Protein backbone atom coordinates (compact mmCIF):
# COMPACT_ATOMS: atom_id res chain seq x y z
CA UNK A 1 0.00 0.00 0.00
CA UNK A 2 1.44 3.34 -0.99
CA UNK A 3 -0.01 6.82 -1.38
CA UNK A 4 0.55 8.65 -4.62
CA UNK A 5 -0.20 12.26 -5.44
CA UNK A 6 -0.73 13.41 -8.99
CA UNK A 7 -0.90 17.11 -9.82
CA UNK A 8 -2.30 18.00 -13.23
CA UNK A 9 -1.90 21.53 -14.54
CA UNK A 10 -2.99 23.22 -17.75
CA UNK A 11 -0.13 24.10 -20.12
CA UNK A 12 0.89 27.70 -19.66
CA UNK A 13 0.05 28.70 -23.24
CA UNK A 14 -3.59 27.69 -22.74
CA UNK A 15 -6.10 30.08 -21.23
CA UNK A 16 -7.17 29.21 -17.68
CA UNK A 17 -10.35 31.18 -16.95
CA UNK A 18 -10.73 29.69 -13.48
CA UNK A 19 -7.27 30.90 -12.49
CA UNK A 20 -8.06 34.26 -14.00
CA UNK A 21 -11.33 34.54 -12.07
CA UNK A 22 -9.59 33.71 -8.79
CA UNK A 23 -6.83 36.23 -9.48
CA UNK A 24 -9.50 38.86 -10.09
CA UNK A 25 -11.28 37.97 -6.84
CA UNK A 26 -7.98 38.14 -4.94
CA UNK A 27 -7.42 41.64 -6.30
CA UNK A 28 -10.90 42.73 -5.24
CA UNK A 29 -10.58 41.21 -1.77
CA UNK A 30 -7.32 42.93 -0.97
CA UNK A 31 -4.66 40.38 -1.86
CA UNK A 32 -2.64 42.24 -4.51
CA UNK A 33 0.45 40.27 -3.49
CA UNK A 34 -0.74 37.30 -5.55
CA UNK A 35 0.43 37.98 -9.08
CA UNK A 36 -0.55 34.80 -10.88
CA UNK A 37 -2.95 31.88 -10.34
CA UNK A 38 -3.34 28.67 -12.33
CA UNK A 39 -5.88 26.06 -11.35
CA UNK A 40 -5.33 22.39 -11.97
CA UNK A 41 -6.40 19.06 -10.54
CA UNK A 42 -5.05 17.12 -7.60
CA UNK A 43 -5.41 13.37 -7.17
CA UNK A 44 -4.73 11.23 -4.12
CA UNK A 45 -4.32 7.58 -5.07
CA UNK A 46 -3.94 4.55 -2.86
CA UNK A 47 -2.05 1.92 -4.81
CA UNK A 48 -0.88 -1.52 -3.81
CA UNK A 49 2.74 -2.45 -4.23
CA UNK A 50 2.16 -4.19 -7.56
CA UNK A 51 1.73 -0.79 -9.20
CA UNK A 52 4.90 0.35 -10.96
CA UNK A 53 5.91 3.89 -11.86
CA UNK A 54 5.35 2.99 -15.51
CA UNK A 55 1.75 2.03 -14.76
CA UNK A 56 1.22 5.29 -12.89
CA UNK A 57 2.61 7.16 -15.90
CA UNK A 58 0.14 5.35 -18.16
CA UNK A 59 -2.75 6.15 -15.84
CA UNK A 60 -1.82 9.83 -15.66
CA UNK A 61 -1.30 10.26 -19.39
CA UNK A 62 -4.30 8.24 -20.54
CA UNK A 63 -6.90 9.14 -17.95
CA UNK A 64 -6.03 11.69 -15.29
CA UNK A 65 -4.60 14.21 -17.73
CA UNK A 66 -5.07 15.12 -21.37
CA UNK A 67 -1.57 15.47 -22.85
CA UNK A 68 -2.86 17.89 -25.48
CA UNK A 69 -3.46 20.61 -22.91
CA UNK A 70 -2.13 19.40 -19.59
CA UNK A 71 1.09 18.35 -17.92
CA UNK A 72 1.35 16.29 -14.75
CA UNK A 73 3.62 15.41 -11.87
CA UNK A 74 3.53 12.14 -9.94
CA UNK A 75 4.77 11.93 -6.34
CA UNK A 76 4.93 8.75 -4.29
CA UNK A 77 4.53 9.59 -0.62
CA UNK A 78 6.38 7.76 2.12
CA UNK A 79 3.64 5.65 3.74
Amino acid at each position, binding site marked *: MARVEVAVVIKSEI*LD*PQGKAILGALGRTGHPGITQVRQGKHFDLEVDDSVTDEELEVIASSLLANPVIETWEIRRLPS
Partner: protein
Amino acid sequence: MTSSVNTGARIGVITFPGTLDDVDAARAVRYTGAEAVPLWHADDSLQGVDAVIVPGGFSYGDYLRAGAISAHATIMRTVIDEARKGLPVLGICNGFQILTEAGLLPGVVMRNSGLKFKCRDQWLRVENTNTVWTSRYEPGAEILVPLKNAEGRYVALPETVAELEGEGRVLFRYVGDQPRQGNPNGSLNDIAGICSADGRVAALMPHPEHAIDALTGPTDDGLGMFLSLVDSLLKV
Protein backbone atom coordinates in the same frame (compact mmCIF):
# COMPACT_ATOMS: atom_id res chain seq x y z
CA MET B 1 -44.08 10.64 -34.83
CA THR B 2 -41.66 9.01 -37.28
CA SER B 3 -41.63 9.88 -40.94
CA SER B 4 -43.67 7.50 -43.06
CA VAL B 5 -40.96 6.62 -45.59
CA ASN B 6 -38.54 4.06 -44.23
CA THR B 7 -35.23 4.65 -45.97
CA GLY B 8 -33.69 1.43 -44.69
CA ALA B 9 -30.74 3.33 -43.29
CA ARG B 10 -29.72 2.13 -39.79
CA ILE B 11 -28.06 4.69 -37.53
CA GLY B 12 -26.65 3.74 -34.15
CA VAL B 13 -27.07 5.92 -31.07
CA ILE B 14 -24.72 5.11 -28.19
CA THR B 15 -25.88 5.20 -24.59
CA PHE B 16 -23.30 5.48 -21.83
CA PRO B 17 -24.34 5.62 -18.19
CA GLY B 18 -25.06 9.32 -17.85
CA THR B 19 -25.94 9.92 -21.49
CA LEU B 20 -28.93 12.24 -21.66
CA ASP B 21 -29.73 13.28 -25.21
CA ASP B 22 -29.77 9.79 -26.71
CA VAL B 23 -33.57 9.84 -26.92
CA ASP B 24 -33.32 13.10 -28.81
CA ALA B 25 -30.69 11.86 -31.24
CA ALA B 26 -32.81 8.76 -31.87
CA ARG B 27 -35.88 10.92 -32.45
CA ALA B 28 -33.99 13.06 -34.97
CA VAL B 29 -32.91 9.91 -36.79
CA ARG B 30 -36.53 8.66 -36.92
CA TYR B 31 -37.68 12.03 -38.28
CA THR B 32 -35.58 11.30 -41.37
CA GLY B 33 -37.23 7.93 -41.85
CA ALA B 34 -34.09 6.05 -40.87
CA GLU B 35 -33.96 3.43 -38.12
CA ALA B 36 -32.36 4.41 -34.82
CA VAL B 37 -30.39 1.49 -33.37
CA PRO B 38 -29.64 1.72 -29.63
CA LEU B 39 -26.00 0.84 -28.83
CA TRP B 40 -24.83 0.10 -25.27
CA HIS B 41 -21.45 1.35 -24.02
CA ALA B 42 -20.44 -2.06 -22.65
CA ASP B 43 -20.97 -3.94 -25.94
CA ASP B 44 -18.32 -4.07 -28.60
CA SER B 45 -20.59 -4.70 -31.58
CA LEU B 46 -22.03 -1.85 -33.62
CA GLN B 47 -24.69 -4.24 -34.97
CA GLY B 48 -23.75 -3.36 -38.53
CA VAL B 49 -25.13 0.18 -38.41
CA ASP B 50 -24.42 2.58 -41.29
CA ALA B 51 -23.38 5.43 -39.02
CA VAL B 52 -23.00 6.23 -35.32
CA ILE B 53 -24.10 9.17 -33.23
CA VAL B 54 -22.38 9.84 -29.90
CA PRO B 55 -25.02 11.94 -28.13
CA GLY B 56 -24.91 14.57 -25.42
CA GLY B 57 -25.04 14.16 -21.68
CA PHE B 58 -22.71 13.73 -18.74
CA SER B 59 -21.38 10.26 -19.37
CA TYR B 60 -19.94 8.88 -16.13
CA GLY B 61 -20.71 12.26 -14.56
CA ASP B 62 -17.90 14.00 -16.44
CA TYR B 63 -16.29 14.89 -13.13
CA LEU B 64 -12.77 14.38 -14.43
CA ARG B 65 -12.74 15.88 -17.92
CA ALA B 66 -15.86 15.77 -20.03
CA GLY B 67 -15.74 12.64 -22.16
CA ALA B 68 -12.48 11.37 -20.65
CA ILE B 69 -13.90 8.22 -19.11
CA SER B 70 -16.30 7.36 -21.95
CA ALA B 71 -13.46 7.50 -24.42
CA HIS B 72 -12.22 4.29 -22.77
CA ALA B 73 -15.58 2.48 -22.94
CA THR B 74 -15.68 -0.88 -24.70
CA ILE B 75 -17.82 0.28 -27.58
CA MET B 76 -15.51 3.20 -28.33
CA ARG B 77 -12.72 0.83 -29.40
CA THR B 78 -14.98 -0.47 -32.18
CA VAL B 79 -16.17 3.03 -33.04
CA ILE B 80 -12.56 4.18 -33.39
CA ASP B 81 -11.65 1.25 -35.66
CA GLU B 82 -14.73 1.65 -37.85
CA ALA B 83 -14.38 5.42 -38.03
CA ARG B 84 -10.82 5.01 -39.30
CA LYS B 85 -12.31 2.80 -42.03
CA GLY B 86 -14.80 5.52 -42.99
CA LEU B 87 -17.88 4.90 -40.85
CA PRO B 88 -19.71 8.24 -40.46
CA VAL B 89 -19.64 9.33 -36.82
CA LEU B 90 -21.27 12.40 -35.30
CA GLY B 91 -20.49 13.66 -31.83
CA ILE B 92 -22.89 16.12 -30.26
CA CYS B 93 -21.89 18.11 -27.15
CA ASN B 94 -20.63 15.41 -24.77
CA GLY B 95 -20.14 13.36 -27.94
CA PHE B 96 -17.75 16.02 -29.24
CA GLN B 97 -15.80 15.84 -25.98
CA ILE B 98 -15.69 12.05 -26.21
CA LEU B 99 -14.46 12.05 -29.82
CA THR B 100 -11.61 14.44 -29.01
CA GLU B 101 -10.68 12.46 -25.90
CA ALA B 102 -10.73 9.32 -28.04
CA GLY B 103 -8.37 10.97 -30.52
CA LEU B 104 -10.81 10.81 -33.45
CA LEU B 105 -10.83 14.59 -33.69
CA PRO B 106 -8.05 17.06 -32.80
CA GLY B 107 -8.03 19.49 -29.89
CA VAL B 108 -10.08 19.46 -26.71
CA VAL B 109 -13.24 20.96 -25.33
CA MET B 110 -12.76 22.82 -22.06
CA ARG B 111 -14.71 24.70 -19.39
CA ASN B 112 -16.63 27.71 -20.78
CA SER B 113 -14.67 30.93 -20.37
CA GLY B 114 -17.69 32.28 -18.45
CA LEU B 115 -17.35 29.28 -16.07
CA LYS B 116 -21.12 28.73 -16.14
CA PHE B 117 -23.46 26.27 -17.80
CA LYS B 118 -25.05 28.13 -20.69
CA CYS B 119 -28.36 27.19 -22.29
CA ARG B 120 -29.57 29.39 -25.14
CA ASP B 121 -30.68 29.36 -28.75
CA GLN B 122 -27.50 29.92 -30.75
CA TRP B 123 -26.87 31.13 -34.29
CA LEU B 124 -24.30 29.12 -36.26
CA ARG B 125 -22.89 29.44 -39.75
CA VAL B 126 -22.40 26.25 -41.73
CA GLU B 127 -18.83 26.68 -42.97
CA ASN B 128 -18.47 23.51 -45.02
CA THR B 129 -21.39 21.96 -46.88
CA ASN B 130 -19.41 19.26 -48.64
CA THR B 131 -19.56 16.64 -45.88
CA VAL B 132 -21.88 13.72 -45.32
CA TRP B 133 -23.26 15.64 -42.34
CA THR B 134 -23.87 19.04 -43.96
CA SER B 135 -24.63 18.51 -47.66
CA ARG B 136 -28.25 19.58 -47.22
CA TYR B 137 -27.31 23.12 -46.21
CA GLU B 138 -26.69 26.06 -48.55
CA PRO B 139 -23.07 27.24 -48.40
CA GLY B 140 -22.82 29.90 -45.67
CA ALA B 141 -26.28 29.06 -44.33
CA GLU B 142 -27.00 30.36 -40.82
CA ILE B 143 -28.99 28.13 -38.51
CA LEU B 144 -30.51 28.55 -35.03
CA VAL B 145 -30.14 25.58 -32.67
CA PRO B 146 -30.03 25.10 -28.90
CA LEU B 147 -26.71 25.26 -27.11
CA LYS B 148 -26.41 23.84 -23.59
CA ASN B 149 -23.19 22.96 -21.86
CA ALA B 150 -20.70 23.94 -19.20
CA GLU B 151 -17.67 22.73 -21.16
CA GLY B 152 -17.93 23.95 -24.72
CA ARG B 153 -14.78 25.96 -25.26
CA TYR B 154 -12.90 24.47 -28.20
CA VAL B 155 -9.15 24.62 -27.70
CA ALA B 156 -6.29 23.33 -29.81
CA LEU B 157 -2.67 24.18 -30.54
CA PRO B 158 -2.23 27.03 -33.04
CA GLU B 159 -0.92 24.71 -35.75
CA THR B 160 -3.93 22.44 -35.29
CA VAL B 161 -6.36 25.33 -35.61
CA ALA B 162 -4.51 26.59 -38.69
CA GLU B 163 -4.71 23.12 -40.22
CA LEU B 164 -8.45 22.84 -39.51
CA GLU B 165 -9.09 26.26 -41.03
CA GLY B 166 -6.81 25.55 -43.99
CA GLU B 167 -8.47 22.26 -44.85
CA GLY B 168 -12.00 23.59 -44.41
CA ARG B 169 -12.53 21.32 -41.45
CA VAL B 170 -14.29 23.95 -39.36
CA LEU B 171 -17.86 22.78 -39.92
CA PHE B 172 -19.77 25.31 -37.82
CA ARG B 173 -18.91 28.72 -36.40
CA TYR B 174 -20.71 30.80 -33.78
CA VAL B 175 -22.08 34.00 -35.31
CA GLY B 176 -24.00 37.07 -34.15
CA ASP B 177 -23.37 39.94 -31.76
CA GLN B 178 -22.62 39.82 -28.04
CA PRO B 179 -24.07 39.62 -25.49
CA ARG B 180 -27.06 37.64 -26.75
CA GLN B 181 -25.26 35.85 -29.61
CA GLY B 182 -21.74 35.29 -30.88
CA ASN B 183 -19.09 33.13 -29.29
CA PRO B 184 -20.70 31.80 -26.07
CA ASN B 185 -17.72 30.16 -24.43
CA GLY B 186 -14.38 31.48 -25.69
CA SER B 187 -13.84 28.82 -28.34
CA LEU B 188 -10.85 29.54 -30.56
CA ASN B 189 -11.87 31.16 -33.87
CA ASP B 190 -15.52 30.91 -32.76
CA ILE B 191 -15.37 27.21 -33.62
CA ALA B 192 -18.61 25.38 -32.82
CA GLY B 193 -17.96 22.20 -34.78
CA ILE B 194 -15.20 20.43 -36.74
CA CYS B 195 -14.70 17.33 -38.82
CA SER B 196 -12.08 14.84 -39.95
CA ALA B 197 -10.12 15.29 -43.16
CA ASP B 198 -12.65 13.21 -45.10
CA GLY B 199 -15.55 14.96 -43.37
CA ARG B 200 -17.07 11.70 -42.18
CA VAL B 201 -16.25 12.09 -38.51
CA ALA B 202 -17.86 15.31 -37.31
CA ALA B 203 -18.74 16.92 -34.01
CA LEU B 204 -20.29 20.09 -32.66
CA MET B 205 -21.19 21.49 -29.25
CA PRO B 206 -24.69 22.85 -30.07
CA HIS B 207 -27.61 20.45 -30.42
CA PRO B 208 -29.06 19.98 -33.92
CA GLU B 209 -31.16 17.08 -32.58
CA HIS B 210 -33.03 19.59 -30.43
CA ALA B 211 -33.92 21.71 -33.47
CA ILE B 212 -35.99 19.32 -35.55
CA ASP B 213 -39.46 20.62 -34.69
CA ALA B 214 -40.46 24.22 -33.94
CA LEU B 215 -42.85 22.95 -31.25
CA THR B 216 -40.08 21.69 -28.97
CA GLY B 217 -37.09 23.60 -30.34
CA PRO B 218 -36.37 27.08 -31.64
CA THR B 219 -36.45 25.88 -35.28
CA ASP B 220 -36.13 22.72 -37.36
CA ASP B 221 -32.78 23.90 -38.72
CA GLY B 222 -30.97 20.94 -37.18
CA LEU B 223 -32.79 18.30 -39.21
CA GLY B 224 -30.53 19.09 -42.17
CA MET B 225 -27.61 17.29 -40.57
CA PHE B 226 -29.51 14.03 -40.24
CA LEU B 227 -31.06 14.33 -43.69
CA SER B 228 -27.61 14.99 -45.15
CA LEU B 229 -26.35 11.76 -43.64
CA VAL B 230 -29.31 9.74 -44.89
CA ASP B 231 -28.79 11.20 -48.40
CA SER B 232 -25.20 10.07 -48.40
CA LEU B 233 -26.12 6.61 -47.12
CA LEU B 234 -28.77 6.17 -49.79
CA LYS B 235 -26.35 7.24 -52.54
CA VAL B 236 -23.93 4.40 -51.79
